[in-house]
């Protein structure tokens, strides 16, 4: 299978090169046969990379330790689901997985555009193939997943124990899907710049791809946070690790892009800015990969002993220079008749929303690279960790949430101060009431008071919007309230799906504030039968259960949780020892409620098991962080749901503009 895998990757590289030549020749000479041939080459590339992935999975599942990768990241005792997940557990495999996703998305984009966008689609496909060539080049010549060992070991080293968790089985694929799918809008943006076809056809063609990418970046970040929360055992979910930052930055930039394209769609403004944002989002995904694989910045996620940094840095520089060059080259053509009347307008709110989003992305980028800069300037490598990021991003996040409430309630073009007061009176009262209520509950931290007030204000603006829409339907169509609400969302899914996402952000924000500011921690050593208090709870240590399997040894403590003498639950935190990697790990126990999470870590255990040390965190409102994430996912599904009216409008545009191919967006996921 290893020869098959290697051969597949080599053929895939050759076909990707051919597809670029065929696409460029076909587009310049208007030869449909060459364009079709290029498309078939891209599909064949995808099939060959799929074959390579199957070959590596086959090696992992059959524990073929003659393959260096399998010997390094698997073992005979590794549970089967993690043998699958080992594909992205190591450097070569994760690059292969990235390339596989890229080849799939490229094939889908080629299929969607087989009869539309004839001016830019071949160039977009060529850009996609160019990116694939970089990754295929790495897999063929630099970091080969099918290298064999001359001396075959009897057993593999096993997958890193931290990765042996179900969240880890889904976190990297989600994040990679988000990263890689951002290549499609980037490629269409680049194609628009190359061809000079600079209207919003590239945006329409890739709008769903951008939302799709944002969706998976959101999922990936959420799953990663949940993984950290359940596996790392420190009671938190976000450590501002460089690789976490690398995943967060494209999400921020993509969020900015999804807002600013609305201005271009509506008012034909911000063409340069939108092209710059999509280029930046893609560059940041490569930057993230560079960080993970270069060793330049130390991170808990880094792939060790990697010499790939210079390749990724070169590719990153090439992308940034070429793309910026194209932007400058086309700058004259990108000028559009700007219409801006007032700072009290939705355009202005969106502009400042973009500023803050990109500002936060910059702050994260700056904090991530500052240790390198400090070392270069002063010769001292310092650490930039959570205190920096929390303090810098805290006020910016507050401004962002505030603008999230302002934007939807003010008009395009301009609003008078009187109208503004009218629109905001009720939400502002709600915000003020929330702040006063928090103050009455003895909350004195200014940030918490401000955060809760702003969150309530924004929630108020969204409630006003829903109430207004439902009310209009009830009066004009006579629908019942629940039916009116469902139909309102169904028939205006882009707008109300967006609001659902905003509700999710607010809910998650409240969860973050609550868990960051009100967490309490207790560390206690107790003997069997003894109990101790954590907030309103009492925890009694009942004993330990040792388990020994060929894969790991574990010691699971049994704790009885009571409140006011009433039995609530039994919790089972454990200490694990992975035999192959000779590595200890912890398994936390979490009792989650909407009010607070009780989070228990078995920190120590004496030899007899009679005495145990527990680290317990009582974290308020963290439940809502995950709830907010789910709402964001739900909102995105609503936004992406095919809308009959939108399709009809697209069809009209398609037939109405024979010279323009922008509107042909038939396939789901295609516009």
């Amino acid at each position: 299978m290893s020869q098959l895998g290697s051969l597949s990757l080599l053929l895939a590289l050759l076909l990707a090169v051919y597809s670029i030549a065929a696409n460029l020749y076909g587009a310049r000479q208007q030869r449909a046969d060459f364009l079709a041939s290029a498309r078939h080459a891209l599909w064949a590339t995808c099939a060959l990379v799929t074959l390579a992935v199957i070959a590596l999975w086959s090696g992992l599942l059959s524990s073929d330790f003659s393959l260096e990768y399998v010997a390094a990241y698997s073992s005979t005792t590794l549970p089967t689901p993690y043998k699958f997940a080992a594909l992205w557990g190591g450097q070569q495999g994760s690059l292969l997985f990235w390339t596989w996703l890229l080849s799939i998305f490229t094939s889908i984009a080629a299929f969607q555009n087989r009869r539309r966008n004839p001016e830019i689609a071949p160039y977009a496909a060529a850009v996609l193939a160019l990116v694939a060539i970089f990754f295929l080049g790495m897999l063929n010549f630099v970091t080969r997943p099918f290298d064999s060992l001359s001396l075959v070991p009897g057993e593999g080293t096993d997958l890193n124990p931290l990765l042996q968790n179900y969240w880890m089985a889904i976190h990297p694929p989600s994040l990679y899907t988000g990263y890689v799918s951002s290549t499609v809008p980037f490629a269409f943006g680049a194609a628009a710049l190359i061809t000079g076809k600079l209207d919003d056809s590239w945006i329409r063609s890739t709008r769903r791809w951008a939302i799709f990418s944002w969706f998976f970046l959101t999922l990936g970040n959420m799953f990663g946070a949940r993984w950290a929360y359940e596996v790392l055992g420190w009671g938190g979910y976000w450590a501002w690790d460089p690789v976490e930052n690398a995943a967060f930055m494209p999400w921020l930039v993509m969020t900015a892009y999804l807002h600013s394209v609305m201005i271009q769609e509506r008012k034909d403004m911000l063409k340069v800015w939108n092209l710059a944002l999509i280029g930046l989002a893609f560059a940041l995904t490569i930057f993230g990969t560079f960080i993970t694989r270069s060793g330049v910045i130390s991170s808990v996620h880094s792939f060790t002993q990697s010499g790939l940094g210079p390749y990724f840095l070169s590719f990153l520089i090439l992308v940034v220079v070429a793309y910026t060059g194209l932007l400058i080259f086309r700058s004259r053509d990108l000028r559009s008749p700007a219409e801006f009347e007032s700072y009290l307008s939705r355009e202005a709110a969106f502009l400042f929303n973009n500023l803050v989003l990109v500002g936060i992305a910059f702050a994260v980028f700056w904090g991530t690279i500052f240790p390198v800069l400090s070392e270069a300037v002063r010769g001292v490598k310092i650490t930039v960790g959570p205190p920096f990021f929390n303090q810098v991003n805290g006020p910016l996040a507050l401004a962002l949430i505030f603008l999230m409430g302002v934007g939807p309630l003010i008009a395009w073009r301009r609003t008078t101060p009187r109208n503004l007061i009218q629109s905001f009176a009720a939400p502002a009262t709600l915000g003020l009431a929330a702040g006063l209520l928090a103050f009455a509950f003895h909350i004195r931290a200014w940030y918490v008071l401000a955060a809760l007030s702003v969150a309530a204000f924004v929630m108020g603006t969204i409630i006003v919007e829903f109430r207004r829409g439902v009310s209009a339907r009830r009066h004009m169509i006579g629908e019942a309230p629940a039916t009116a609400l469902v139909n309102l969302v169904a028939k205006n899914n882009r707008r109300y799906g967006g609001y659902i996402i905003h509700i999710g952000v607010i809910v998650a924000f409240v969860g973050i504030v609550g868990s960051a500011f009100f967490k309490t921690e207790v560390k206690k050593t107790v003997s069997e039968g003894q109990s101790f208090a954590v907030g309103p709870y009492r925890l009694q240590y009942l004993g330990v259960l040792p388990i020994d399997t060929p894969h790991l040894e574990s010691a699971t403590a049994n704790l009885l949780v009571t409140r006011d003498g009433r039995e609530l639950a039994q919790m089972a935190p454990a200490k694990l020892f992975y035999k192959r990697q000779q590595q200890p790990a912890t398994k936390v126990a979490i009792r989650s409620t909407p009010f607070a999470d009780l989070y228990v870590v078995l920190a120590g255990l004496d030899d007899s098991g009679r005495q145990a040390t527990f680290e317990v965190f009582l974290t308020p409102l963290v439940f809502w962080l995950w709830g907010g994430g789910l709402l964001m996912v739900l909102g995105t599904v609503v936004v992406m749901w095919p809308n009959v009216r939108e399709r009809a409008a697209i069809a009209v545009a398609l037939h109405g503009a024979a010279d323009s191919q922008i509107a042909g967006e038939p396939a789901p996921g295609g516009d």
Partner: protein
Amino acid sequence: MKRLLFYAAPLGVLALLFSFALGGDLAVRAAERPTLATVSQGLTCQCGCGLTVANCNHPTCSFSVPVREQIESMIGKGESGAQIIAFYRQKYGEKVLSAPTTEGFNMVAWVMPFLVVALGGAVIVYTANRWRSLPAARGTSAVQSPESGAAQFDAELKDRLAQEIRERS
């Protein structure tokens, strides 16, 4: 350019003040009520994980585990957060801190994000003012009556509903 500077200068000063205030905040908080969580979040683990002492995920870490115990003991003896952090800084150097200090070149770390946002804001204001002075903007504003976003949306919604009613009948 002059105009750009005109907008950037006050915003820049604001950003500087803001970042100074923020830079001082951590120390104040640490001094007010030290807990194991807040103090250990201020120190970087030296085992190579790159995380803070609070966040290090190695159960048998040779650095974070004893340091956490030591911090608890120092808090028990009544030492302030700032004192504990200063102790470790003296022992291991600046690398043990989990955030840049607010001295010398490190100040750049704190100031730059706010400065960039302030400059970005100035560019937006400058560009928007230029757009506002364009004839197109002046012309439309004289004709269009200003309305709230709600009213604008109400009109759009009513149009859509009217269309929906037509489609039903």
